[in-house]
């Protein structure tokens, strides 16, 4: 693991102060006037490098909203987000695109693989788009990690959901992003497969030093997350470092009751 981190440090995609994403006073308001919804209120959060940060909370509590804003997919009504030391809320589309190529990875609930490309092509797509050459050793390492080497020539339609999500994880890892965002990556999978994907993400944090922010409803995340944030009505209502599923259940019920 130490070797991998040093490799990352050499490429400069990890900030030295150990914070990959730094967000302050985020607010997101949908709509106007009477129908206005404050999906996010004064949320500040630091995502430490090499950590898996989990975000949990009841439906409609603003998890996805937070995630989209942190990843630069959506702009906050107010507040700021820095990724790798760069303020992203004021960037134009071109600069955001460049930032995404280098610093941001995504894993989606519905996989979002391109149906006409094979697994291999899907995995290297971000590099291809960025015009970066594929490092074969790194490719092998990533593919080995997600256990998909035998299915590389298959198309998404020929893969199971779990396999598709593995391909998606590999696609997110291939460009060694500063931070990887995952919004309910197991939401569309059965419990066992979902567990495998969680394990895979955990492994990439452990062995590759990947920074991950993940939204999930799966309490098992407790065993792998370095920290669990709880959102309720658009605000961070609780934070648990190194926790257990039982604690999480309790926290959820607690928040739900409010």
């Amino acid at each position, binding site marked *: 693991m130490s070797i991998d981190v040093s490799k990352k440090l050499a490429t400069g995609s990890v900030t030295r102060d150990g914070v990959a994403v730094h967000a302050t006073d985020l607010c997101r308001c949908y709509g106007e006037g009477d129908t206005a919804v404050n999906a996010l209120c004064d949320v500040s959060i630091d995502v430490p490098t090499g950590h898996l940060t989990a975000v949990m909370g009841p439906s409609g509590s603003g998890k996805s909203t937070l995630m989209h804003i942190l990843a630069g997919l959506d702009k906050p009504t107010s507040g700021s987000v820095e990724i790798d030391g760069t303020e992203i809320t004021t960037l134009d589309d071109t600069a955001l695109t460049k930032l995404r190529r280098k610093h*941001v990875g995504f894993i989606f609930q519905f996989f979002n693989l391109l149906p*006409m490309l094979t697994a291999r092509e899907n995995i290297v797509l971000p590099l291809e788009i960025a015009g970066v050459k594929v490092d074969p050793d790194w490719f092998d390492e990533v593919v080995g990690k997600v256990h998909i080497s035998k299915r590389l020539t298959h198309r998404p339609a020929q893969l199971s959901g779990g396999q598709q999500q593995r391909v998606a994880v590999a696609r997110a890892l291939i460009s060694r992003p500063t931070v990887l965002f995952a919004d309910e990556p197991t939401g569309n999978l059965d419990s066992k497969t979902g567990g495998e994907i969680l394990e895979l993400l955990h492994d990439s944090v452990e062995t590759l030093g990947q920074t991950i922010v993940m939204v999930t409803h799966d309490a098992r995340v407790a065993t792998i997350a370095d920290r669990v944030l709880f959102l309720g009505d658009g605000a961070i209502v609780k934070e648990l470092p190194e926790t257990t599923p039982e604690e999480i259940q309790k926290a959820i019920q607690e928040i739900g009751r409010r």
Partner: protein
Amino acid sequence: MLRIALRGLWSRKLRTSLTAFAVVLGISMVAGTYVLTDTINKSFNTLMASARADTSAVVSGKSLVKNGATSDQPTVPASLLARVSSLPGAASAYGVVETESARMIDAKGDPVGPAGPPALGFGRDPASIGRDGAFKIIDGRWAKGPGEVAIDVASAKKAHVSIGDTIRVEGSGPLQSFRIVGLLQWGSSNSLGGATMAVFDLPTAQRLFGLGGRLSEIDVIAKDGVSPARLVAQIKPLLPPNAKALTVDEQIKEDQSQWSSFAKIIRYALLTFAGIALFVGAFVIFNTLSITVAQRTREMATLRTIGASRRQILGGVLTEGLTIGALASVIGIGVGILLAAGLSALMGAIGIDVPRTATVYAPRTFVISIVTGVVVTLLASLGPALRATRVPPIAAVREGAVLARRRSSRLRQIASGLLLATSLAVLGVGLFGSFDQSSQRLLTIAAGCALFFIAVALLSAYFARPLARIVGAPGSTFGGTAGKLARENAMRVPARTASTAAALMIGLALVTFVSVLAQGFVRSIGVAIRKQASADYIVMANDGYSTYSNAVAGRLARVPGVEKAVALRTDTVIAFGKQISITGFDPKTASSVYKFDWQEGSNASLAKLGGDGAIVTDSFAHKHGLGIGSPLPVQMPDGRKLRLRVIAVNKQPELIELLGEVTVSEKAFDAVYRNPKTTLLTYLRTTGGESEAVAARLRSALAVFPSVQVLTEKKAIDTQSSGMNTLLAMFYVLLGLSVVVSVFGIVNTLALAVFERTRELGMLRAIGMTRRQARRMIRHESITISLIGAATGIPVGIFLAAMVTTALSRYDIVFSLPVSSLVAFTLATVVAGMLAAILPARRASRLNVLEALQYE
């Protein structure tokens, strides 16, 4: 990115090829037109060059009148021949008579050969005729002396005659009989575009075609060692003012240029229709790509989240456009080559067989076809591509995040409105503005129409929903649940329905436009003719526009029962530097049929016409400031100058004007125009009006003039309109191509809709919709879209026709709706809609319910 785009296309093969097909037809027409005209051009050029193989120089008459608008063919005096032959540089020289009015008549009295191509007649010295490459005798010998003729093999076959038989030929006078002494062919070709050929000896031809003492040209062969240029230099001092001498190469160029300017007209006419088909095709491509881009919103957004820039997305969609364009062009060229072969076979079948040495595939054909195809598709894909760049990355995760853009939709409204205003302004300028050249006017009008169509297409998105409600009502009422759902489906994405219908709208608008205009013309022709003259019978050439023998009127005047026979001669003259039309009539009888509308002068003025008097039309007088007594200098086609004097000014309608800008007495006319075939119309007044007995006598008197027909006034007017109907039919066929393209557009939209609604269709089938109902649902949707096309296209066509009618109001063109045609168009649209639905409906009905429901 490129690869993704190509892969995407490959994975949607059927959709891609359907999309491509939208431009294939247009491109095939472009390629086909070029291949066909190039081939015909090349063949004619080779023929023309080979025809003058041994000649060194050619002496011929000059005509100041362009475009063959005169019956006064350029000739040279026959006396010139002897002087040219005796030149030191000339080895020999021979005279040639050549005309395009030697119609052969077979034993049954029917004309030989089709009506369009010329009936060529030649006068040649039998001693010299075999020398050049033009004619080859196949059987028998050349004609020698009066009463003999050699005719082309093809005509002999058509007339079922051979050597020794008699054939009748109508020259510039009554029919004459000739004995066939030889069968010939032109060069190595056995066809000359359907033209017939009759070759006589020189004096016989001069007599037959009314060219006494004159020759069409003199072909000169140089002595060894004398260059054509030197020969021409020797000839020049001998030439009278209206003659010219050219080296053989110059002459061949001139022969070819006449033909090629004709070929150019055909080419541009066909290319215009190809352009319309491409314009419609662009709509279809735009629409199909818009739908596929919308369907791939999530895919595009995902690409954005993993680092694709807007430019890359743009590039991706444009690459698709480029590929579709290139693919379509290549297929289009292939189809075009087949089309050209098919067309020339078709022309052969109706007797206009094209001489084809070898099909010409000029590199230019391929370049233009491919460039056009690619550019049209690229332009059409620009809109969808730009829209794709606006897909926000967040659409990858959020279904509803797709472009809620109120401001830009208002912007679109404003832009469409502005475009509409602009298009109307351009149309207005094109129709009512003044232009130096009519080609500029046409281009302006075309641009205006194109913009107008685009504007209507954009705006139709706003009224597609109510329109669908209305035109979908019958289906919804009688089609059961399927019909109701179909109407809802058509209204679901109004913009999509509207732009699919827009493609059809264009074709229908143009069809409606020509049909309304044609009806207006037909009505106006009758009105205009009746307004100017009245008679019991009118005599005209079979084709309605050729001039015929001046002997006809005299012959008919002697038929018992005929009171008056008034002939109108017509030709071209140059006045004030412009070609104008000149008429000759007998001033003593003219007022008995022609209703003068004097602006200056009166019927009494007719007596003053004499040898140099002229009646001018009001508009001509106004333009050049003429009044009674004004001198009017004019120039004949051969350069002779005449000094006429205005004796009266007559008001005339500007459509189907029976008299030319200048009218002179028949005597004066005949004194200057040598051709004895200058009569355009002969008006007959009979005692007791129309009667079968008189008609029969008239017909028998005209038996020796088979190219001329006698008609009642009403029939004569109908004949004028029937020419319009032929033209109209041609327009319909050529515009039909655009309609076919737009039908493909409907197929595309529906196929994509079926694809998009797979789940929904599966659900409907699962809860009990039969296959039949599923098919009916798609079919009704298709018909609804088509009817929206009709409901916009027909009014747009009527509107455009009304604009043009207004612009042409000085021609008294009435605005009249061809109701039955419009009903027929609407019915045809319904049929088109049903045809378009076949494939998508089958897809929808064959859907596997289980798979459809599992489908993600």
